[in-house]
């Protein structure tokens, strides 16, 4: 269980995380979504006590992580950047971490086998590929058999088989009753892995809902109309909750009206329609829609991205 209350992090006058309040519940995989630079990594670092919040608070299993007597048993984390000394072997890396909690060497062997690194465990971690590095990071996160697992972009650099392995692993860990909090900038990946998503942009909470609800809201009636008289038709489409957008010159995307209503309006005005159909927005589009403002902001302010990355 992770509970963030008005969690805020400022670097100078740049706000990386802006008053985030959310709860990550045990037993399910919760996705943490947002474009690059949205404050996901900073939030995760604050959960694990690596960064100090400017204001607000976050607890893991009821207590700030820093105050836990056995932190590795409460939460295990894989953070985006590598956290391994490049000259040390994977085995010794895990042994050193395990020693702090007097976790037996047997458990180190277990997690090495779990992530499939047995063959290379005695080799220098600096020689690992990105995918092997991610596996070692996951092994470190699971070392203390933690109740809460926090993974920042765990599928980065993994091959399709590796991605599938992570997906199954996370679902399995959640089924055991653990809290799984996993960040990604890919909605499609989260749709397959997570049951619940928390979406952030520009450090602010944009959505906190189940994936099922998200899919439902994403597939609300969007009507696609193709007509040579697009401008004219557009001026006729109005009313509460009606929005019209246009990606091509002769195409309108209408929400808030049914295809029948749009067809009726066109007939009344004597306009020719070449195409009229409902269009299901994909999850990825829903996500892009939600975070459009923060993405646009991102291209203006690159400085923030560096800070929050």
């Amino acid at each position, binding site marked *: 269980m992770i509970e963030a209350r008005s969690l805020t992090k400022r670097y100078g006058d740049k706000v990386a995380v802006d008053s985030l309040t959310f709860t990550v519940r045990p037993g399910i995989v919760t996705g943490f979504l947002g474009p690059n630079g949205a404050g996901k990594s900073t939030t995760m670092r604050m959960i694990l006590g690596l960064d100090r919040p400017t204001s607000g608070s976050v607890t893991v299993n009821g207590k700030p992580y820093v105050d836990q007597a*056995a932190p590795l048993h409460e939460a295990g984390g894989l953070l985006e950047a590598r956290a391994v000394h490049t000259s040390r072997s994977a085995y010794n890396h895990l042994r050193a971490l395990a020693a702090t909690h007097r976790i037996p060497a047997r458990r180190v062997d277990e997690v090495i086998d779990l992530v499939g690194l047995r063959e290379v465990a005695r080799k220098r971690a600096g020689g690992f590929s990105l995918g092997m590095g991610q596996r070692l990071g996951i092994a470190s996160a699971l070392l*203390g*058999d933690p109740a809460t697992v926090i993974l920042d972009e765990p599928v980065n650099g993994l091959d399709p088989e590796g991605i599938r392995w992570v997906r199954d692993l996370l679902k399995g860990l959640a089924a055991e*009753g653990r809290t799984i909090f996993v960040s990604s900038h890919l909605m499609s990946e989260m749709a397959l892995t997570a049951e619940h998503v928390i979406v952030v942009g520009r450090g602010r909470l944009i959505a906190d809902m189940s994936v099922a609800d998200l899919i439902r809201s994403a597939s609300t009636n969007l009507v696609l109309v193709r007509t040579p008289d697009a401008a004219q038709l557009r001026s006729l489409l109005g009313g509460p909750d009606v929005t019209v957008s246009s990606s091509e010159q002769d195409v309108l995307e209408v929400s808030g009206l049914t295809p029948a209503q749009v067809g009726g309006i066109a007939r009344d005005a004597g306009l020719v329609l070449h195409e009229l159909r409902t269009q299901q927005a994909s999850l990825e589009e829903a996500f892009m829609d939600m975070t459009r403002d923060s993405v646009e902001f991102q291209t203006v302010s690159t400085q923030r991205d560096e800070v929050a990355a």
Partner: protein
Amino acid sequence: MSTATMTPQTGPTRSVSGNRTPSSSGVSTVGVIASEWIKLRSLRSSWLTLAAAVIGMVGIGWLVSFETNSHWSHMQPDERIGFDPVSRSLTGVYLAQLAIGVLGVLVITGEYATGMIRATLSAVPRRFPVLWAKLGVFASVTLLLMLVSSFAAFLVGQQLLGSHGTTLSAPHALRAVIGVALYLTVVGVLAIGLGFIIRSTAGGIAALFGLLLVLPAIGHVLPTSWQQHILPYLPSNAGGALYTLKPDPGTLAPWTGFGVMCLWALAAVVAAAVLLRRRDA
């Protein structure tokens, strides 16, 4: 549920509220010390640098003592008067401090450079135990190794100096031999402190040797009246008083000087602790 004690287990089933008997109790001082010992000994660079310190200490002592003995007849009378067989055999301390200093800085900046520090501080989020354990492990290893090296350098050196040599029972000889090991240990502590403060390997090494080697050299450019108020208190000059048997005028008394050097190290460690607690990892 939220305050349940979590314990490692291997089976596929667990519940968040499980009440299993803990086989691992959490972060302990002994555990963090063990962790730092594993970290130190699992890097090849540690062994190479420590070997360099031992070889520097004993090898230079051996070389210098051998040379002194074979050139004795060519030495000027005033050189012979100022000659001190104890210090001569311990000349290697100047080389050994380079190795110990570099390794002391690397013990922590190596973690910042690679990102390992994030794993370390996630496991020990209270942070202070990491600083104490690194200091304890590295200081113990340095003290032990350098005590042995210092005695070896002395004994080998006196053997090679032959009739110009002395013994451990000579006045202050034992203090100098142990003093070299103590001096090097404090160099290591200072190095770790600066490493925690500066976080970068290049910066940490520059700061350490700026303080130990460059400042005393620059100090000689100052007006003479200032020199006597500043030079003896610089860490390497102050600490050096412990193993120098024929000191320059103005040098602090041996244990006073060593005390001053310890204060420098203490200041670095206190600053390191404050910054470690305050800064983001």
